[in-house]
């Protein structure tokens, strides 16, 4: 599946969360990640993310789509980072 993940994490935990998410998805701008991921890997990722976050203060939202094609992406201004696999 193809997902967009956004988080709102307290200052003291945010670096840890950033590093964790970077292992699974492409960072595209502050607090936002994007990428192809399997269902099982996503479960694993969120499980571990849950260990990092404080569920009274922090939140993660995942937008899921079966296919990348079903998602139209429009960028206004400067693209912080692309998700291309050609570097």
């Amino acid at each position, binding site marked *: 599946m193809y997902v967009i993940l956004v988080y709102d994490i307290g200052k003291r935990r945010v670096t840890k969360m950033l590093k964790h998410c970077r292992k699974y998805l492409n960072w595209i701008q502050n607090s936002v990640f994007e990428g192809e991921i*399997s*269902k*099982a*890997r996503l*479960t*694993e990722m969120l*499980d571990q993310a849950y260990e990092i976050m404080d569920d009274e203060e922090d939140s993660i939202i995942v937008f899921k789509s079966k296919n990348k094609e079903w998602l139209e992406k429009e960028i206004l201004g400067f693209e912080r980072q692309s998700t291309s696999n050609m570097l």
Partner: protein
Amino acid sequence: MNIIATHINYLHICHRKLWLFVNGINMEHSSDLVYEGKHIGEHSYNQRSPKFREVELEGAKIDFFDPQTKTIHETKKSNAFEKAHVAQVRYYQYLLHHNGVLETRGIIEYPKQRKRIEIEPLNSNDFTEIENWVKAVRAIGNEIEMPNRKDKPSKCKNCSYFDFCWISENE
């Protein structure tokens, strides 16, 4: 061949799967299903962990054993292969027995289906049956030829060997 619980489990699912596994033809790495299966095993009991012990025996690693009630806890993703799951827990009981832990019980839980199965201590018939399983595993594993796949692909849904067994060019 050292018989492990996975062998007993596969014996009750598919002889070809057992044969492939015994002979090192493994696909598990690419299968998300297995991955998720493992996942449930690892995480569902996190909150209740203090009363459980991890028990390592030759042939089995029991993740959740409650020494006080002598109960093996096993969690599975789907109850599609109930018989195999029961056999696996039976084998744990058998191994524990031979390691001096007698009269154990088992509980298999299917959190997604909200279902649980309780397993009584082994009786003498059970011992004979389990010894026959062990013999059967050895016999199948040592066969020169790979056993046949099941008769229909619909019986193989969710198996990590699905593509391996069902790929063919002739319609």
